[in-house]
Structures are given as structure tokens and as C-alpha cells.
């Protein structure tokens, strides 16, 4: 980095000056060395396992690549055109959209409601918080398994059908009925069970950052307790948390894979983008050209939506 040879050639520099300059140079060189000792291993890994894959995938998306990761035949934009006109890929984006329309508002409203409920109890608050947070310990595989084999299994000994049976309702084949689309009930509830506690924790932290003096001021100003205080004090004060919850939730929904794969498999009526991409790039034919193009299209869509959301909600100004 530094060029220390120059100083000794300069006769005007006194010994003392030369000494300090040398030390400073050594200090800077030392800093550079230590910086890379600390950051280098991480950066090398990031280059190999983050940057290289993206670049490789970008290259591959312009090539034909069946069962190989080596680009062979250049096809220009054909993979992209194919994906953007692929009925299955487009319908997977549609599936995602329906899923997001259910899951994002429900998660937001219910996790906020749980946070408000837990925050206002005076006894056993830690117990209630733990109960709602505990599903975070379960994986999507575990939850899907419970949902598929014990709650929504579609036969008589499933819990959902047992309960409906008490009211004289016939068995419903939850996961395979397309009309009406009952499969959304297990798909949405499994994610709610798994993630509500996580977002509830974020909301509780947000609620506890609200200064009690704001509520006191609201009382003095005659705000009605209940809805008015919630609407004009609590909700605006939770703005930063709300934005975070919405964005995290939407990004997570885009990347839904585990519960769809385990509950319904690779079926055309409920197939989100990642399940479809998994199927074409790692199924019986490993079509990595189309898979790469699809993954990059999806990545761009997610980034655009995130940026749009940030713009709408003005993240960054929120200062949480």
C-alpha cells in the first residue's frame, strides 16, 4: 500500500521526522493488513457464494443449459422470453399474488392484535407471550406435517373434519379440492401459526417504545380511550414497526416454498414461483438456463416491489 522508500532519500527530513513518518506508514499498512485479516475471509466467501453464483446465473440465463452448469449454446434472450410467456410461470406469480393478498393483511392485523392483547394483561404476560412465540421453534416441514396428516387430512380422523362432523358437515378434502379452493385454508393458517408470534414480538417491542406521556397527553386533551387513542396515538407511533412487518412479510411470502412443497406438492393449482423454479431446474430435467432466467426475473420483481414499498411508506425517515 505505502511507499516508504521515498522518505530516506530526502535529506531535508530530520531523523526524528523520519522516525514518526515511518511509524505512521507502518501504522497505516498495519491497519490495512488487520482490516483484511478481519474482513477478508468473509469477503472471499461472499464473492464465491453470493457474487459468483449471481454472475454465473446471469451468464447461464443467456444459454441453453440442460443437465449442465456449463454454458454451451448461446440463445440470447430466448430463456427470458420463454419464461415471460410461460403460462405456468405466470400462473405461479398469480398464485403468489393471491397468497400475498391473504397472508400479508392477516399477519399484520392478527400479530398486532396479539401484541395488544399480550401487552395489556397484567398477570402471566410472559406465559402468553411464550405460547404465541413457541411455534417459531417449529419448521415449516413440521407444521406442514401436522396440518397435512392430523388437522386437514381430508378424512374422518382429521381434526378439522372431526370438528365439522360435530355440526353434521361432511368430510372435506382440504388439500385437493379446487372448487371451492379449500386448499388456501391450510396453506394460509399454517403460515399464520408459524409466523404470528415472530411479528407479535416486533409489535410488542414497538409498543413498549411508545412514551406513556403521549397517552397522558391524549387523556388530558380528551381523547376517548379505546379506538381514538389507538388510531391517533398507538398506530402512528408504530409506523416504523408496521413498515418493517409489512416488508418482511411480503418478501417472505414471495419466497414461499416449504409449506406449498410439503402440503400440496408441485401441482398447478397452488404452485408459487419458487416451487415452479425448483421443478424446472432441479427436477427430472435440470434446465438451469430457464431456471436462472426465472430466478433473476423473480429477484428483480421482489427488488422492485421492495423499493416501491419503501417509497410509499418512506422507510428511512421513520427512524426506528
Amino acid at each position, binding site marked *: 500500500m505505502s511507499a516508504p522508500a521515498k522518505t530516506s532519500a530526502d535529506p531535508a527530513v530530520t531523523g526524528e521526522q523520519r522516525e514518526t513518518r515511518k511509524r505512521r506508514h507502518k501504522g497505516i499498512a498495519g491497519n490495512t493488513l488487520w482490516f483484511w485479516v478481519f474482513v477478508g475471509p468473509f469477503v472471499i466467501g461472499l464473492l464465491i457464494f453470493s457474487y459468483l453464483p*449471481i454472475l454465473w446465473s446471469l451468464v447461464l440465463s443467456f444459454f441453453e443449459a440442460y443437465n449442465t452448469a456449463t454454458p454451451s449454446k448461446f440463445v440470447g434472450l430466448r430463456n427470458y422470453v420463454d419464461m415471460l410467456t410461460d403460462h405456468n410461470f405466470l400462473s405461479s406469480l398469480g398464485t403468489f399474488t393471491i397468497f400475498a393478498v391473504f397472508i400479508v393483511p392477516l399477519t399484520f392485523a392478527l400479530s398486532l392484535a396479539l401484541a395488544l392483547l399480550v401487552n395489556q394483561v397484567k398477570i402471566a404476560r410472559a406465559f402468553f407471550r*411464550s405460547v404465541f412465540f413457541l411455534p*417459531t*421453534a417449529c419448521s415449516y416441514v413440521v407444521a406442514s*406435517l401436522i396440518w397435512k396428516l392430523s388437522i386437514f387430512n381430508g378424512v374422518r380422523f382429521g*381434526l378439522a373434519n372431526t370438528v365439522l362432523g360435530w355440526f353434521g358437515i361432511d368430510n372435506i378434502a382440504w388439500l385437493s379440492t379446487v372448487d371451492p379452493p379449500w386448499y388456501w385454508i391450510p396453506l394460509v393458517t399454517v403460515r399464520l401459526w408459524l409466523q404470528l408470534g415472530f411479528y407479535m414480538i416486533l409489535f410488542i417491542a414497538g409498543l413498549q417504545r411508545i412514551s406513556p406521556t403521549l397517552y397522558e397527553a391524549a387523556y388530558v386533551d380528551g381523547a376517548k380511550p*379505546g379506538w381514538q387513542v389507538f388510531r391517533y396515538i398507538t398506530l402512528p407511533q408504530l409506523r416504523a414497526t408496521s413498515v418493517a412487518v409489512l416488508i418482511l412479510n411480503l418478501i417472505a411470502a414471495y419466497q414461499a416454498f416449504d409449506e406449498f412443497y410439503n402440503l400440496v406438492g408441485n401441482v398447478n393449482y397452488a404452485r408459487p414461483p419458487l416451487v415452479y423454479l425448483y421443478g424446472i431446474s432441479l427436477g427430472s430435467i435440470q434446465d*438451469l438456463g430457464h431456471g436462472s432466467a426465472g430466478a433473476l426475473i423473480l429477484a428483480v420483481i421482489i427488488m422492485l416491489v421492495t423499493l416501491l414499498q419503501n417509497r410509499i411508506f418512506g422507510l428511512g425517515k421513520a427512524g426506528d
Partner: protein
Amino acid sequence: MAVSERTTGTPQPIGFSRSTMGVVGMVLRWVALFVAVVLFLIPFYLILRNALSTEQDITAPDWTLFPSHLQWSNISELFNDTTVPMARALYNSAVVAILGTGGQLLLASMAGYGLARIPYRHADKVFYAIVATLMIPGAVTFIPSFIVVSSLGWVSSLRGLIIPTLFSGFAAFLFRQYFLGFPRELEEAARVDGAGYFGVFWRIVVPNSLPFFAAIAAITFIGNWNSFLWPLVIGQDSSSWTIQVAMSTFITAQTINIHELFMAVAVSILPLVLIFAFLQRYLIQGVTQSGIKD
């Protein structure tokens, strides 16, 4: 902790006051809370009930609330079932979760410290290069990552399961933010005593940051243990299945022993339930810290 019992005794933070909302409102809120608790606990009840039942009890047309007698032999049946490499899968999951968490913490904390504390001309460029990876949605990269990992010949190996997951830009970012707020006086005292960056980091900074490390570790461990897509992509051979992949294969198989499968679920969530029991405050702190990006 971030989520504490702080509000007890202060004015009701939500704005409900008992006198105006009246008894009806309070009863409604307790009913809502009670219903929510029951709904959230039902899946755990099902795990225990099914794991300790016979197949006949589970598939009986009338719901049996609890098995007539607890079928503990389901445990040995599960581990003796040669069609599912249960012990191997648990071992793989343990290795992946422990080494994955340790490695990620080591790499991200050192990178975060370097970025926060060591002056270097291009430090900001390096920082931006790391933060830029946060823009890329994680799951979308499974195809690109698979391409690289298969070229390295790491498919169906523990290396392939662990190493690509070690470099979390988000963890490095969190550590950098944390170290920026670390009290400099502590470090300077050690610096005066002649310690270099390495000594200061390991002898002063890390020992004084254990709660933060514990928070990130708890979150990372759970994420690694429960991770599914990447292990599914890499674990093409049953010897490299993690417990999640093994259970998933079990579900999609045509012949299913429900009691055995639920015993597998019970065994698989045990380590995480223990973490919840003993490290919950770190976990909640980790969620709060990693959930909200600045």
C-alpha cells in the same frame, strides 16, 4: 430485555381503561386471549398425542383425546426403521446447525468489527459491497448457488450444506452496527496496555458482548436447524439428508406410519424447545434486533 414487564403500573399503553371499557370489554379480551392460546397449542397437543399413540388410536373414526396407553415403543420403532435414516439425519442436522452457527458468528463478527473499528481507505466500498447482497432475496439464489456448489462437487455433502450458508451479509451488518455502539473506552484501555486489534477483539470486545452473540446465535441456530430448501437441493443422497428433508420425504412417501412420523416430529423439535425454555430472552432480543432493519 427489549420486551419486558415495563408497562406494569404505568398508564395502560393501549389506551383502554378498565372503568370506561367496562367489564364487557375486559371479558371479551380475556376470551379472545384464551381462544388464541388454545388454537396456538393445538398443534403441540397433536404432536404429543400422535407420537405416543398406536396407529389404530390415531385413525379411529371417533376422536380419542388421549391415547389409551402411552406407546413409548414408538421411539425405538422410529430409530429401528431402516427405510428412514433417522439417526443419521439428526446427526447431519446437529452438525449443520452447530458448525453453521459457529462459523457464521465467527465470520460475521470479525467482519463487522473490522468494518466498525479498523480505519481503511476503502472500508466504505467493502461495506457497500456487503450490504448490496441484502437486496438479493435469499431464496431466489438457490439455483445460482446450486450451480456453483455442484461445480465444486459438493452436492450431497456436509460441506455443501454448511459452507455456502456461512456468509450472511445481514449478520455482518448487524455486528457492524452493534460494534459501532460498543464503548470505545474499554478498547482504548486495552490498547494502552499494548494489545493489538486481535487481542482487543478477543479479550475485550467478545467477552463483553456475549448477550448480543447469544441473541444472534439463538436465531441462527433455529434458522439452520429448520432450514429446508437448501438442504433439499443439496441432499440428493439419503446419507446427507437433514432431519427436515428426512421428514419431508416421509410425508410424500405413499406408505405412512403416522405415529412414527409424529415421533420424528417430537424428536426433531426437542432441541429447539430446550432453547426456548432456557434462552428465550436472548431469542426475543435476537428477533427484535434482526427483525427491524435500520
